[in-house]
């Protein structure tokens, strides 16, 4: 800023610091839904199998060390499940829960392993080629010559048959949620860093991913990616609202 004194610059920064809490309070969350390129076959009164949600929340300490918070994660998990059940019920469907086998060494029945292993691979491809994970800002995103650039063209094929048979379900819903939130000490450090150096640091980061797989065809029929940089990740109300947002475009 030419002609601006050092004192004036500090005052401007101080004013901006005051804006930080206001920015943090206004939840800034975006979603990016995608549907199967060939369309989605919607069934009446669908039974939706909710696979074990993968939820992990971290607390960023004053000095910036991420600490996993099992209590936050458990609370977020429960909220995610409740909000999912409410969403499916509101569409005339029924949510059924995947039951983990008694053997602690394997979290799924051996017959379901092929579908779940394939799902992990397919999810990786969707994140890379559709959501452009891993592509640096400004860089050319990778593409697959075997697929068009729009819509989802992935299937788990016949591997889903055991899941459909064992749960008499029409769809499988996969949910993943990751979030990190600064503690109050870190928020103060961020404010001080901004005032002193002009460095802006987000006080929280959240990513949610939902995927719906048709258990009759094996097709991945819908995905949605939610990302936000400012909401209270430990609060159930916020989690509930964001789950509803994540599932808003669920094609049921």
């Amino acid at each position, binding site marked *: 800023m030419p002609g601006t004194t050092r004192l004036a610059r500090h005052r401007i920064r101080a004013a901006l610091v005051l804006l930080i809490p206001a920015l943090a309070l206004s939840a800034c969350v975006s979603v990016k839904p995608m549907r199967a390129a060939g369309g989605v076959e919607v069934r009446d009164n669908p039974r939706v199998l909710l696979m074990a949600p993968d939820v992990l929340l971290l607390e960023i300490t004053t000095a910036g060390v991420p600490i996993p918070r*099992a209590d936050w994660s458990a609370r977020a998990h429960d909220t995610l499940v409740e909000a999912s059940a409410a969403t499916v019920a509101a569409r005339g469907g029924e949510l059924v829960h995947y039951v983990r086998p008694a053997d602690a060494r394997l979290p799924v029945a051996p017959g379901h392993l092929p579908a779940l292993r394939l799902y992990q691979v397919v999810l990786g491809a969707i994140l890379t080629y559709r959501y452009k994970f891993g592509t640096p800002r400004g860089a050319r995103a990778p593409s697959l010559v075997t697929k068009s650039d729009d819509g989802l063209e992935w299937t788990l094929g016949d591997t889903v048959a055991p899941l459909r048979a064992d749960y008499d379900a029409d769809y499988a819903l996969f949910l993943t949620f990751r979030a990190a939130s600064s503690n109050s000490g870190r928020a103060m450090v961020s404010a001080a860093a901004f005032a002193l150096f002009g460095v802006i640091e987000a006080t929280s980061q959240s990513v949610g991913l939902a995927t719906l797989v048709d258990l009759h065809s094996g097709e991945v029929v819908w995905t949605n990616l939610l990302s936000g940089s400012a909401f209270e990740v430990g609060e159930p109300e916020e989690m509930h609202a964001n789950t509803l947002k994540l599932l808003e475009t669920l094609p049921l």
Partner: protein
Amino acid sequence: MNPVHIAAVGLAALLIAGCAFEAPRMAPARAAPQQPAEEGLWEISRKFEEAVAMSGRKVDDPALEAYLQDVGCRVAGPYCDGIRVYPVAAPDFNASMSPNGFMQVWTGLLLRVENEAQLAAVLGHEVMHYAERHSLERLETTRRTANLLLAVQFGLFAGGHTGFSSGPVRVSLGDVTNLVAGGYLAAYSREHEEEADREGLRLMQTAGYHPGAAARVWQNLVAEQEACKLPRPAALLASHPPSTERMAYLDQLAGSDASGANGEQQFLDATLAYRGRWLRAELALRHFCRVRVVAERLLERGANPGELHYYLGEVYRLRNEPGDLDKAIEAYENAISAAGAPPEAHRELGLVLQRANRDAEARAAFQAYLDRVPGSDDAAMVRAYLAGAG
């Protein structure tokens, strides 16, 4: 660096040294997280364990898994109920323990240990990480160190001490204090490793294994590192003590105690069927020198020499440096004349003989392969080689 800077960095180093967090050893009957940070670590570990258990990386062989779990339990003693040992298909010498008792043993490690006692030494080391709650100690120590570092750096900044000039170079005091903290945390990690080594040796000794086996693990690894000139981490920031140091203190700790079992035959019974697959996995990464060193060492032990000569042949055939063709031919011929060679030794011998323009011998080798596995997937291709050889 002026006296104020030296005093500040020195004071920071002293304060950082006081950041170490010590957790009491886990009580076997209370194998559960005891505080919020530990609950979080266990939660992450549980996810990691499930991911590995579901992945194709886990070796899907209940017998091998049961064997590793059995050895792990014998070593772990009262901690047995809390640990789960998984064989993971990955080259290189490695094993790791998660805070919740989930232990991974890489197949590259199983390839390199020579008997059950050596395996027990490694498993004992990992069990001690779990029992001593080292992950929690590292997390808490990192948190304390980072907090202190932040305070020191803000203090230096507030006092106007951001750095100093050394000739044309401007040195940041923030970087200096970061280096001090990084060095401290690495040294702290090395302390944990040495503690796990020493206490792990006691565990395997109590379980009835020969204590000298622990040093032998590192002796073999040092020999491999030196023969293949493998890079080593910078000493200051290394998370583990140097292998030579580990070998020395474990050797000293074992002393001249010749008691205890080696369990070589038990180890071979459980793992020999996999050895070729594990050597192949190392070859896929073009670890030619390392496979050669490991195979030559295992040849001295005597089990299935034909298989080991075959993989030595593979090293030379695939490396394909000057002189390797003759070495490959010799290795395959040694394989065929020894016990335990796979039928592929004949096929590969045919290929290298063909490359050496020894067509008649190549034809004989290809024919020998077809005689042994006439219905193999590549029989048609080998017949084509046979037709083309001369």
